[in-house]
């Protein structure tokens, strides 16, 4: 037993130093040098201010913007630190809803959201627009969910529907090499393009 003591302690300390400090700090050094934008969170800066990250969804509620998916993230209740309150797209505390398929709370939430989204519109609501993402920070919606919102956004901005639809189509990202992943639209990028189109 005692003969194992020295290698156990020495190797633990050595591996901790190598894999716990040298390795992550070396990766950090190289990453900061070679890929500074990605290594620092792919942040979007406008007029010298950070307005978000291309990879992190934001909570859009205005009629003038395309909306992202429902988000189940929460935050500490400012009035009672032992409780949490709903805080969509809280990028400091990622989470999904974790509601199961036979949970009445899930079905009621989704059906109510779908009714609100549809209004008097006869079109069916794309499923991703009424389901919460796993991270609560999904930056994307499906092309179907973007096209579904074109009429509303165009009306709120007094823009031609065709112009808005064209903008959506320009922002559809296809599968990698045509095979891997799913087609999607980055909501923040699309909304930034909308604002830019108005400025022009």
């Amino acid at each position, binding site marked *: 037993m005692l003969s194992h003591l020295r290698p156990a302690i*020495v190797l633990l300390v050595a591996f901790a130093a190598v894999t716990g400090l040298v390795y*992550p700090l070396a*990766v*950090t050094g190289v990453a900061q040098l070679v890929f500074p934008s990605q290594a620092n969170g792919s942040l979007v800066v406008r007029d010298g201010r950070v307005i978000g990250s291309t990879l992190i969804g934001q909570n859009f509620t205005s009629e003038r913007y395309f909306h992202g998916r429902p988000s189940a993230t929460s935050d500490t209740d400012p009035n009672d630190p032992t409780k949490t309150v709903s805080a969509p797209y809280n990028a400091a505390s*990622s*989470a999904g809803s974790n509601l199961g398929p036979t949970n009445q709370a899930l079905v009621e939430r989704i059906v109510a959201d779908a009714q609100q989204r549809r209004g008097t519109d006869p079109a069916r609501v794309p499923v991703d627009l009424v389901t919460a993402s796993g991270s609560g920070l999904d930056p994307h919606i499906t092309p179907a969910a973007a096209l579904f919102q074109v009429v509303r956004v165009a009306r709120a901005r007094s823009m031609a529907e065709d112009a808005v639809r064209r903008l959506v189509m320009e922002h559809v990202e296809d599968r990698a090499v045509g095979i891997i*992943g799913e087609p999607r639209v980055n909501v923040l990028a699309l909304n930034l393009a909308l604002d830019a189109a108005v400025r022009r």
Partner: protein
Amino acid sequence: MTVNGWIQIALFCAIIVAITRPLGAYMTRVFAGERTWLTPVFGPVERGLYAAAGVDAKAEQGWVAYALGMLLFHVFGFLFLYALQRLQADLPLNPQGFGAVAPDLALNTAVSFITNTNWQAYGGETTMSYLTQMLGLAVQNFKSAAVGIVLAVALIRGFARRSTRTIGNFWVDLTRCTLYVLLPACFVGALAFVAMGVPQNLNAYVEAQTLEGARQTIAQGPVASQLVIKMMGTNGGGFFNANSAHPYENPTAVSNLLQMVLIFAISAALTNVFGRMVSSERQGWAIFAAMGVMFVAGVAVTYWAEAAAHPAFAAAGIDQAASAAQAGGNMEGKEVRFGIVASALFAVITTAASCGAVIAMHDSFMPIGGMVPLVNMMLGEIIFGGVGAGLYGMLLFVVIAIFVAGLMVGRTPEYVGKKIESREVKMTMLAVLSLPMSILGFTALAVSLPVGLAGPANPGPHGFSEILYAYSSATGNNGSAFAGLSANTLFYNVTLAIAMLIGRFAVIVPMLAVAGSLAAKPRIPPSAGTFPTDGPLFVGLLVGVILIIGGLTFFPALALGPVVEHLALNAGALFATAP
């Protein structure tokens, strides 16, 4: 289900088949102590470590010494990680000023990471300082992965060697695995992930002002360096609470494919290492085939379940059909960039292996879609499995299958030239039976006690599934969750920690005893009466034995959870939480 979906699945399978041989050849050289192309770089480091640790690299150990070294290494690793979490408030690299981790949570997390489980009762970005993540959690990711791999190699030596008392040197195997396999691959992999968008910094969280003028705090950190070992070591503990569903921890479908490949890479290669070391690669491919058959079946069932429409949504005017413009299906808890097929595929991979990372919330899967991951874990994660753990788990089932075959024809069973006798079968049964004892025993305890029943977030049978999943995940050292369960309580932290220890050490120690006992036997050449163990008949027998043992043991519990939930869903029944 779409054609593209099946192509994505086929692409993944093709990559795994393609890397098995080259990686297997390389790892065989590493564990044989031979020179590799990295020896000029790491050779001096390796020798320096042996000198400092007082290890004689030439001296081999018997199974008892090997096991003692391994256990002692875990004890110190546990103390180190526990202390680091408790002291993090007073240590550097803590830009968010997180306080000390609570004692029961620190205990649970320390056990979880030394056992390669990486159960997350904590939220990474709200609990752990950067120092704890790097020096605590990631170090254990490396160590527990290396330990798993070298234990499998020790068992393989038991099969491969003849009439010897030793199965290798634990310290040498551990050092070589870390230096020549894990570290170089992680360094390259981490940079690849950064290029795809995974952050790698020590900055404080970023305060952004969103397009609509709201404040958004965006968590940062050294994510990439931790992500790659979490995958490659089948650890699975996420830097962030949402794990690889978080867009920072898995930004694109390509980064996702790389993560899936990393989970299976070493475990698949180890089947080839086995084949090479027993001098017949076909033996390795037979094990690979048994794993592959069960894997593909699991993927097909999960993909089917998740692509299906939720009956209650169709009536509400929700479009769940797959089309060119959307993936459709059950998107609750899933990310748009991954859609249905990648989410289903990943869920099966992460539970077939003992990884436990997730890109979608398993709690929100359809009943049958969530049952496949559960079954994968109950079978002991032997479908490729955790690094090392998958192979030694599978070899234990091989011992049982060979024993059953021997009983049927009335011959002493043998496998790759080794007679399988009473001692090996007893030790194997001890290891194999400890898993259901822990899973079913603790689940029964939790559903009998108010502290246990307080845990589930979902009502009805799904709540039972949450508890069953938790103990399956902990015992299987997986770490994924039906995450609605409120597991950060004294009861769950402690019982889950015990389940993790049983799942790890009640398998490892008997397994090493089998290794030692096999190594001592001579290898007998195959004769006309030898049952060939490299053909389809053997693969079928092995899969059959695994499914029968798993089925008989766990079907009653599954019937109370996912099976009844599936029937209820199709009958239109929903469950409400009692007010």
